[in-house]
């Protein structure tokens, strides 16, 4: 991992409040795998002070991509970056989803948590049989559905909470049938903690291998500030940034 000034190549709206940023870094683009993230400085000043974590969405050396939703001051500043601007980035950070061959893997994404899963589709769809379940609040929050459509997946199911655009429901609505139908023995998921909690109660005891890539508000991103902790099932805190962000589902103590 390195800390470097990366050039912004493009920074454009994908849909609604969501932006896709293409940045240049040989180091990050050549050394990232699905699950890895970067810490990005949103301002060149001391306010806001902290860098923000973003999952790597895809790489195309010497370029890599992140996306974000404009929700506050930090993301507004990021949205104002222009082609040619330099932003300080630390990465690649964290661990990755395990690499498999010839397995039936189900990817489960919630809301903004599609970055490592899209990256996994791009990297692993040639070597494994992948299926995808992806859900969000509404069709405006379901991202990259067109791009995902270009990959050969065994099964894809999209859901929205309000039923707009896609089937009304959650990622757990048909998950057991989808697992059964596709002979799934491994899942990779990314999304909010609430989604993981429902997933855990729905599929946590099926005897399959479940890997979750967690989101957290972070200080440093590389394990020294001890802020982004989650309680492990052994009762000890784990750092999302450096012990994760990918954990086996059973390593984490879920609320329900």
């Amino acid at each position: 991992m390195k800390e470097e000034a990366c050039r912004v190549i493009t920074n454009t709206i994908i849909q609604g409040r969501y932006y896709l940023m293409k940045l240049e870094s040989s180091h990050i683009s050549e050394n990232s795998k699905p699950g890895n993230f970067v810490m990005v400085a949103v301002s060149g000043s001391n306010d806001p002070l902290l860098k923000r974590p973003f999952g790597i969405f895809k790489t195309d050396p010497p370029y890599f991509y992140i996306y974000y939703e404009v929700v506050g001051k930090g993301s507004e500043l990021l949205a104002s970056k222009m082609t040619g601007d330099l932003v300080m980035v630390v990465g690649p950070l964290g661990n990755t989803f395990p690499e498999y061959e010839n397995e039936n893997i189900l990817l489960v994404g919630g809301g903004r948590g599609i970055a490592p899963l899209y990256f996994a589709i791009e990297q692993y769809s040639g070597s494994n049989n992948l299926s995808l379940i992806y859900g969000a609040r509404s069709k405006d929050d379901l991202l990259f559905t067109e791009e995902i459509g270009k990959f050969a997946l065994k099964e894809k199911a999209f859901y929205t909470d309000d039923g707009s655009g896609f089937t009304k429901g959650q990622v757990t609505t048909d998950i057991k049938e989808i697992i059964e139908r596709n002979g799934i023995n491994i899942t990779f998921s990314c999304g909010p903690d609430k989604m993981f909690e429902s997933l855990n109660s729905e599929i946590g005891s099926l005897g399959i291998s479940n890997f979750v890539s967690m989101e957290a508000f972070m200080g440093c991103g590389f394990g020294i500030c001890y802020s982004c902790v989650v309680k492990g099932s052994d009762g000890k805190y784990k750092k999302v940034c450096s012990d994760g962000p990918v954990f086996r589902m059973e390593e984490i103590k879920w609320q329900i």
Partner: protein
Amino acid sequence: MADLTADLGFIKLKNPVIPASGTFGYGGEFLQFFDLDLLGAFVMKGVYSEERGGNEPPRIWETPSGLLNSIGLAGPGAEGLRGIIKEVASKTSTPIIVNVCGGNDEEYLEVARVLDVMEEVAMLELNISCPNVRSGGSCPAQSPSDTKKVVRLLKENTKKPLIVKLSPNVSDVPSVARAAEEAGADAISVVNTFLGLALDVKNRKPVFKNFFAGLSGPAIKPLALKIVWEVAEAVNIPVIGIGGIMTGRDVLEFILAGATAIQTGTVNIIEPTGSVRIINETLELMDELKIDNLEEIRGGLNI
């Protein structure tokens, strides 16, 4: 080229920049970013005698140009730290300082004794000021007499140079500094974080479970600089200035206020190579201002 040496009396550092406790892990985490030998010294995260998990999240909160934290000194305990110290020491010759914590005087001594016999440890920093672990945020640094008692206990029973880290959350920091000096402290480091409060209006609750949290970052620099100046006026032992240092110019400001060396904190969290940048900037600024060495300007305000 200017001479960056910082002479604490009991040790000469190649430069005055020392990453602070709690902002630099155990040092080894930064090897992937730079050679630790570039630093004047570094302080390992504070350690108690037993392993600790730290506080219930949330643990940090961003403020304008500042950072509130309530980490709660998570760590492996003194015995557990020994292996970590040996591992890092095998990769650098930069002096290692360990931040010593305790729930009472006996625990401070217990931790200090474990570290005192390690040749890999250059100095101890006595953390009598952590705002995030005791109820009500009180620590020995709240009172000159409690400070004197614990510093004397450590000085009588351990051999390593002892830096005493003070809290800014008291009405009279210089009197606590003088108490530490009288009890035999070899240096003072000041300031630890300022107690602050973050509130969640929607839920009408404090953000942190511990209510108060410690504020750091550039937001506190002028407050810290004032206290460093006051303490440097009050004692004859070296003062290590801490508080929101982000640039080489900040370093020279603290030296001018009377500090012999400085500690970098929050900058290490937000910019892993920040301390190295600060060393380079300090050197460049000294050359630009034709300052040959730090002693030339230390405490040398034209007033």
